Every structure is written in C-alpha cells, then in structure tokens.
C-alpha cells in the first residue's frame, strides 16, 4: 500500500546537491589528521584495511605481532551508520546476494590492499602526506575500476538480495558492539595487542570511536564511497563522489602543511609504505576491480553493514579473513617491499576477478524485468 507520493524538486545547484559529500570528505581527512596526532600510525590516521587487519590480529587469526589491536574506529563506523540509518528509517535487514562470492571477493580486496599497504582511503591519505607511491597505487586503482566497469556495462551483478529479519541486520553491528564493550570494560586482555609496530600506535579509544561514529553517520547519509567516485564519473558523468575523494586529499595535505609535517612529495622513506611500483599498481588494481564488483569500497561495506546489509557484513568478514591469509602466508608487504608470495597472490587474484567477472556478466538470464 502506498504511503506517500512526492514529486522530486527542481534541479538544485551542484554545491546544493553535493555539500554533504564534500563535508564527509573533509571530516574523513580531518579525522585522519587528528587521529594521527593522537597516536595512530603515520599516514594511517584512518585506514579501513589496516584496521581490519589489526582486528584480525587481535582475534588471533594471524600471529604477526606488530599488527594486532581491536581498532575502535571500525566499530564506530558501523555503529554510526546504524544509528543514522535508524534515525532516518533506512535500517533494513537484508541479504542473500551471493554471500560466498562476496566473502571471497572481500578476501581478495584485502590481499591486494595489503600488498599496496592500504585501502583506497589510506591511499588518498598517503597522497595527502606526500607519498608518491600512493599516486602509482591510484593509477592502479583507477585501472582496476575501469576493468570492473567493462563488466558492469556487460551486465555483471551479484544477484538480488532479499528482505531478512532485523536481527539478521543487527547481528554484525551487535557482535562488534559486544567486542568493543568487552574492551572498554577492561576485558581487552582477551584480545591480542601489539607492544611494538603499527598496532601499538593508537589514538585513545574514546577519540577513535568518536571519529568512527561521526564518519560512519555522515558516510551513511552522504553515500560516500571511494570506488563510487571514479565509477560515477566515468559511467554517469557525475562528479559529486569524486569531489569528496579530492576533498580528503586536500584536507590531509592542508592539515600536514599547517602542522609542518609535510616535507614535499617523494617515493622514498614514506611511513608504512614501499616503493615496488609494479606491485603498488597491481595491488590497488585488485582493490579497485574487486570493490567495483562488490558495489563499494571497504568503507562503504562497513556503512552498508551498519544499515542492516548482511551481504556487506559477510564481505567485511571476508576482508578480515583475507588479512589473516595475507599475514599467515607472507602475502602482505612491509616497509621493506612486497613479497614473492604477494606477487603470486596478486596475479592469482586478478585471474579470479577476471573469471568471476566473465561468468557473471555473460551467464545471466534476463533478470530484472517484469
């Protein structure tokens, strides 16, 4: 039964349409700068892949001692999105769109991200910090997205999701909240925690969760997505999302200049980064391609999981699994460079992405028309 009908208003100005996205980009950049000042690692104030990798370590899924910490930022993003979705009556339990494939694609995205050393968000934060290796990563990221778009245009999709109970949608945010409460009530000894290395560098938990809540809430409202930016610009000639992408770079760059941390652009000596150009490029190609197939970047998956989308929750779990694989089997790079195993994994990931793209682009019936 119809509840209400509304005629959409006349066209508003570009800024009128996109101010919220620009504000989200600014907030994400500012959060990265502030959290870095408060203790998070260099050029890693806010990184979804790195923080999920740290969570995988905290849970004992891998045993790389320097990268273990239950990062409150991740909890904050999911809960911020959940609260905003509830307030706007957009929370809906739904799922059932190719969960196993999404889990696997999530793992591949993480493997690619850890060869590059960062998700799309950290990539732009690294660019804003003067790291030219991340510019190489950006080129790979765009190349990966363009590959994915070829198949989207051919009809690729992961199939329909279906309505589920609210409990299904709340399961993942609830589990994260429970783990976080265990942490802040002093039971964090349950989790592993780095004594040295990036996992030991951390902003206070209250600042971290607050930043996560703000970013999650605003990203839910604005649909902020690092992959969507390039995708929408290429496919629909819409530049709102990609402007938010630029806003993150600008904010981080300005923040670093103001704080006198900016020492110019260079390849060498960048924090938690390496200069293997080819593998920076290909690692981020995997991230771009995989994320396009998944319908959103790692940050967007967290936000969707907060809205009750259990397919995205499964994707995040796949990413955490991918982080465990990366560190258990030496696929992940370090500041010293990429690894031979990482090279094999990236080539394998590209081959799997091609196979999945081909199969789901051409083996589909004429779904969607009634």
């Amino acid at each position: 039964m119809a509840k209400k009908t509304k005629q959409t208003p006349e066209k508003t100005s570009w800024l009128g349409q996109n101010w919220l996205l620009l504000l989200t980009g600014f907030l994400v950049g500012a959060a990265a700068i502030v959290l870095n000042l408060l203790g998070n690692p260099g050029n890693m104030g806010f990184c979804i892949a790195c923080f999920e990798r740290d969570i995988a370590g905290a849970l004992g899924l891998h045993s790389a001692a320097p990268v273990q910490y239950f990062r409150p930022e991740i909890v904050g993003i999911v809960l911020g999105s959940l609260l905003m979705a509830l307030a706007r009556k957009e929370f809906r339990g739904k799922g059932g769109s190719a969960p196993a494939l999404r889990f696997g694609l999530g793992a591949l995205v993480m493997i690619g991200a850890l060869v590059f050393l960062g998700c799309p968000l950290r990539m732009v934060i690294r660019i804003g910090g003067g790291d030219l290796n991340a510019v190489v990563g950006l080129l790979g990221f765009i190349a990966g997205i363009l590959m994915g778009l070829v198949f989207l245009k051919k009809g690729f999709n992961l199939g329909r999701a279906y309505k589920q109970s609210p409990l299904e949608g709340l399961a993942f945010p609830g589990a994260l909240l429970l783990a976080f409460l265990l942490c802040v009530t002093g039971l964090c000894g349950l989790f592993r925690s780095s004594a040295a290395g990036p996992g030991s560098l951390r902003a206070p938990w209250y600042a971290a969760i607050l930043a996560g809540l703000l970013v999650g809430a605003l990203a839910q409202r604005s649909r902020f997505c690092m992959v969507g930016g390039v995708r929408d610009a290429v496919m629909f000639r819409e530049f709102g999302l990609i402007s938010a992408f630029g806003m993150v770079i600008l904010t981080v760059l300005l923040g670093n200049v103001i704080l006198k941390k900016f020492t110019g652009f260079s390849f060498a000596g960048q924090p938690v980064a390496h200069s293997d150009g080819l593998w920076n490029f290909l690692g981020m190609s995997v991230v771009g391609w995989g994320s396009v197939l998944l319908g959103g970047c790692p940050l967007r998956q967290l936000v969707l999981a907060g809205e009750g989308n259990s397919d995205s929750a499964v994707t995040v779990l796949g990413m955490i699994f991918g982080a465990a694989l990366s560190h258990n089997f030496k696929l992940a790079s370090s500041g010293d460079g990429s690894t031979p195993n990482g090279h094999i994994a990236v080539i394998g990931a590209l081959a799997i992405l091609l196979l999945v793209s081909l199969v789901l682009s051409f083996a589909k019936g004429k779904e969607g028309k009634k």
Partner: protein
Amino acid sequence: MIDATGYSCPTPVLMVQKEVKARSPKSLEVLVDNQCAVENVTRFARNNGYAVAVTEREDDFLLKLEK
C-alpha cells in the same frame, strides 16, 4: 516496469540507463528497495530530462519517470 528490488547500486541505475538508451521511453516505472537507489535513479533520470515521482510503499519505492 523495471524491477530493481534487491539490487544494490549502481545496478538499478544501469538497468534504467540501458532501457533509456535502447528505447528512450516517454514514461518508465522503476521499482527499487533502498533509498540510495532512489537517489541515484532520480539523479540519473533528471539529468536525462525526466521528471520523477516517488511513491513509498511497504518495503520499496516506485519511481515514475516522465518526459
């Protein structure tokens, strides 16, 4: 009618784009089930010269596109 329920973005927009490119219909009905798809399809439709009326139903939204 295009039934894009259960699909996440950008698939609903792509389904509409395909139809608009193929037949440039004077009017078109699109069924979606999330606010993100409503916003994206609406933006795409407006940019292509359609007026859009949104009807919110139980679990989904019916978008009527008219030229």
